[in-house]
């Protein structure tokens, strides 16, 4: 096993999928010679050429829409949106088109499309290079929404996404691109889209998270284990849509307490759905309020480091929320 960074695992998945299936191609802004602004596609242009690694015009709706068209024609496009903050112009194509095509055609047409986008804060990207946009899309039946937090999952989930016959949004926690490292087997394997992952077993409470926050939540769990003897179960949700209700309920049935962590702002963030599932089907298991630790309800992450710090959850804040909930 090799230790790879998150972004290298992503690149490796694309490389292997390009190798495996000539129908797979990549498009997006600067994905070609430039190798992507985060270098996720670095080297792929040289290896596969301009037919398969295609610099798009600076126009997100057409990146997605031509991806949809190509998918309808049985290709396997991987569309890169340079930052998740710039996915909004493509909202119509994703929500009204890609998500509804299979249903609206009575199952005749399918859209095997992957849309990759780096998301999240903590990198001084300010209001428009830090956004978390997953919540919008988790409200849209017909889409799948995936967010990896480990290199192993990143590779395996991306491969599953490429092979999935549905449109899959694959959001990448950009702060973790180089900060998160982990073992990744060379060669082919997949991680199924759907099931959450128990990142750490525990008995005292359950913390749900994904992306960079899953990484931080494990760190926080280790901290409170060390410092407070608290035994926190961490569930890395990984697939946000479809919702893995079983994983959510099973864990809280055991622990009785739930904390949900995301860096997206609180109101109508994904934590709302997890809390709602627990408040209904998990009601009998709960012995404490369901807590959400999230970004504040402000338009996005501000630039100045002081305000950015204030906005972002981090292991200390998560540990504090764990302690607080455990005391209930």
């Amino acid at each position: 096993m090799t230790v790879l960074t998150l972004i290298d695992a992503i690149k490796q998945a694309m490389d292997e999928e390009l190798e495996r299936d000539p129908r797979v191609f990549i498009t997006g802004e600067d994905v070609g010679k430039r190798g992507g602004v985060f270098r996720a596609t670095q080297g792929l242009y040289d290896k596969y050429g301009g037919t398969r690694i295609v610099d798009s015009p600076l126009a997100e709706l057409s990146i997605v829409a031509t991806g949809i068209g190509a998918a309808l024609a049985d290709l396997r496009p991987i569309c890169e949106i340079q930052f998740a903050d710039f996915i909004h112009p493509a909202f119509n194509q994703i929500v009204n088109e890609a998500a509804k095509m299979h249903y609206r055609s009575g199952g005749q047409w399918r859209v095997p499309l992957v849309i990759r986008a780096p998301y999240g804060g903590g990198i001084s990207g300010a209001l428009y290079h830090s956004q978390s946009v997953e919540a919008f899309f988790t409200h849209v039946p017909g889409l799948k929404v995936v967010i990896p937090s480990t290199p192993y999952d990143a590779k395996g989930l991306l491969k599953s996404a490429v092979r999935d016959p549905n449109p899959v949004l694959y959001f990448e926690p950009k702060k973790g691109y180089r900060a998160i490292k982990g073992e990744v087997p060379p060669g082919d394997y997949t991680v199924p889209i759907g099931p959450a992952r128990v990142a750490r077993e525990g008995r005292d409470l359950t913390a749900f998270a994904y992306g960079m926050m899953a990484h931080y939540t494990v760190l926080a769990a280790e901290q409170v284990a060390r410092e407070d003897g608290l035994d926190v179960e961490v569930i890395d949700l990984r697939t946000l849509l479809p919702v893995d209700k079983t994983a959510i309920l099973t864990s809280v049935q055991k622990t009785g307490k739930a904390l949900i962590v995301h860096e997206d702002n609180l109101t109508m963030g994904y934590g709302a759905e997890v809390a709602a599932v627990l408040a209904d089907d998990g009601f009998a298991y709960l012995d404490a309020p369901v807590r959400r630790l999230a970004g504040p309800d402000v338009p996005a992450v501000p630039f100045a480091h002081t305000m950015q710090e204030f906005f972002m959850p981090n292991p200390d804040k998560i540990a504090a929320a764990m302690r607080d909930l455990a005391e209930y």
Partner: protein
Amino acid sequence: MATKIFARPSARLKAEHLLEMFWLMLLSRRVDERAWALHRQGKIAFHISGMGHEGAQVGAAFAINRGVDYVHPYYRDLALVLALGITPTDFMMSLFGKKDEYSSKARQMPSHFGSKKLNIVSGSSPVATQVPQAAGLAFAIKYKQQAGLVNPDDSTQPRLALTCLGEGSTSQGEWHEGMNWAGVHQLPFICLVENNLYAISVPQEGQMAVSNVADRAAAYGVKGIWVDGNDVLAVYDAVYEAAQRAYRGEGPTLVEAKTYRVVPHSSDDDDRSYRSREEVEEWKKKDPILRFEKYLMDEGILTPERLDEYETRARAEVDRAQHAAEAAPYPAETDALDEVYAD
């Protein structure tokens, strides 16, 4: 920049093709009229019509490889899809929202055409979304040829993507981005703009400060051409040239067919508030079916007897279609839950 064409590929069409084109225009008109009648009778909830556009649509359909080339139409394209192989019964099933309706299993409103078998891509209601998707279909054609996945001369495979929309819908950013992608990659792509002068109530001047939509093609490095959309053969000629260019790998074309919608926008509309009766009557005189009929009669290709025969056949087909659709069952309630995801 937009040019009229003078070569006439349609001069080579055989009488049987001309008659088939005429038949389809007529059939579409009769199906369409029946739909309006059904709506007046309160039997159906909604109809959106192609009346007046039949010449543009059938002309375009015959100029491509029907049923093979990708077509991504819009809600007004009844005659187009009939020419591609959708049947009156198919359409009636969608008017009534019956189980196993061909395009969407009765999930969509009528006139949201789509058939995988015929390479007609399922459309939505938000206008112009089909344009960049069609650019993607055309991109895939070129990709497969370049990657050696298909033979560029294999006419059993789609070799172009044709998409249609109204002139008003070219105001959308979706249109811009689709046209631009087609231009940048010089794709085998045809955008047919059916310019009927109105977008619901808003006249062309409210949408654009140019006289011809075709003049906008130059902005994309796309060939632009406009034709009289009520002249089925002129449209055929223009789209035929565009298709041949596409097949030869010479790039995309925008064809603007100037026509008129002689009825309200849809069964929900009342057009009296925004256009005069005189204007509508003027345009009715330019009806593409009457015009083609006269041409075919003058040429001795169509006879009054054959026209009668067509009318009888059309009525019979429409009756049969209506009855079949009325007799068909509704979807089960829980059919609503199927096919959210492909597997």
